[in-house]
């Protein structure tokens, strides 16, 4: 790892000012993507601005139709939150399926959502649960937030502060993992919202990152049963293909995990 200067601001204002004052800064949250990337010398920020001490980024607030999670909340905290489990158990299950115990003790929801890894779990929940991403300067609807691989609507220096999820009527999450990396080869977050709208968000498979699978949404809108998506496949030209799984196999997996998510509403199925 190249040299860097570590900062731990105590306020949002301090963090944002610092980012604008120094050259080549990066925000640090759990660091479980950024630090390995720095060790591999694929990133070399001259300044690391740790956002975990900023009070606004902490805490979980639950209302009847909303769950608001501070960006610096760890995966382990979300996984163990009874407040969240009582309203969106699949979100706890998703958080509990990220990485391993040690990673979940440190990695944060905000870090994951800001990084937007195409195989990360949280982006699918953000999209399917019609979340709002609150930053230090504005609120961004999920539909306008994800902008391709490792790319989001966040501007340089903008800090993701909290994520507001809509509580659905019911939701399910199913993931098929790469047995070596444990990242999703394909995963589906399916939610039926209280207004009757059904959202199907797919992660791990898209060649531009997380996406809503509209054909599956239409089919499930007509009939909310697992076999409603039988025979449906996303266009493999829109999917990633690599040594772990060619695009046609990923397309098949997308169909499988979507069906399994609907079979496991109120829960999580990880394989």
């Amino acid at each position, binding site marked *: *790892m190249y040299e860097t200067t570590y900062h731990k601001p105590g306020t949002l204002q301090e963090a944002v000012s610092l980012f604008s004052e120094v050259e080549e800064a990066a925000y640090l949250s759990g660091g479980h993507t950024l630090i390995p990337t720095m060790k*591999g010398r694929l990133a070399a920020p001259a300044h690391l601005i740790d956002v975990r001490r900023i009070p606004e980024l902490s805490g979980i607030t639950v209302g009847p139709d909303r769950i608001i999670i501070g960006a610096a909340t760890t995966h382990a905290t979300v996984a163990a939150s009874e407040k969240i489990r009582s309203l969106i158990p699949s979100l706890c299950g998703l958080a509990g399926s990220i990485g*391993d*115990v040690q990673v979940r003790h440190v990695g944060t929801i905000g870090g994951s959502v800001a990084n937007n890894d195409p195989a990360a779990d949280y982006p699918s929940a953000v999209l399917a649960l019609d979340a709002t991403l609150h930053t230090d300067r504005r609120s961004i609807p999920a539909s306008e937030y994800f902008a391709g691989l490792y790319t989001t609507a966040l501007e340089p220096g903008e800090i993701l502060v909290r994520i507001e999820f809509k509580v659905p009527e019911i939701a399910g999450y199913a993931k098929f993992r790469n047995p070596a990396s444990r990242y999703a080869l394909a995963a589906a977050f399916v939610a039926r919202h209280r207004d009757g709208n059904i959202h199907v968000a797919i992660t791990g498979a898209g060649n531009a990152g997380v996406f809503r699978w509209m054909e599956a949404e239409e089919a499930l809108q007509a009939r909310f049963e697992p076999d409603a998506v039988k025979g449906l496949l996303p266009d493999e030209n829109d999917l990633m293909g690599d040594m772990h799984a060619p695009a046609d196999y990923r397309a098949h997996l997308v169909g499988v995990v979507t069906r399994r998510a609907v079979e496991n509403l109120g829960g999580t199925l990880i394989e």
Partner: protein
Amino acid sequence: MSNVAITVNGTLHTKEVEDRTLLVQFLRDHLGLTGTHVGCDTTQCGACTVIVDGKAVKSCTILAASIEGASVSTVEGLADGEKLHDVQAAFHEHHGLQCGFCTPGMIMASVNMIERHDGVLDEATVRHELEGNLCRCTGYHNIIKAVLSAAEKHRTAHAVAAE
């Protein structure tokens, strides 16, 4: 450079270190505590697992400066003189190691697992909880046996204490 104060195995250590210093480097290079191993250096293998403020973490992926003020437990802090910690004793008794390289991380992850679950563990839970610890000798069966045995002992000890 940062002046970093961290309590390790009950002793407060204050060191002037580069900001890029990882916790595992702080432990090994600055404190000479080489029981914590570096296996993959990519957050996957868990050989560097230590317990920070009650949570098992991978010390190769945490900046020492970021846990200023924290309390860290490493494998060196487990035994009481010549008397092994129950988890260490169980690994010995059940032959829960082959080459031994992953063992400090396995043991720290297991100690933390047993504490967090208050000793209430079954085989499936232990396997799931040890997902972040790789044994390249593939000696998992005896590791699982050792953890379950130590968990049982933890439960018994606490049941006796509660009476």
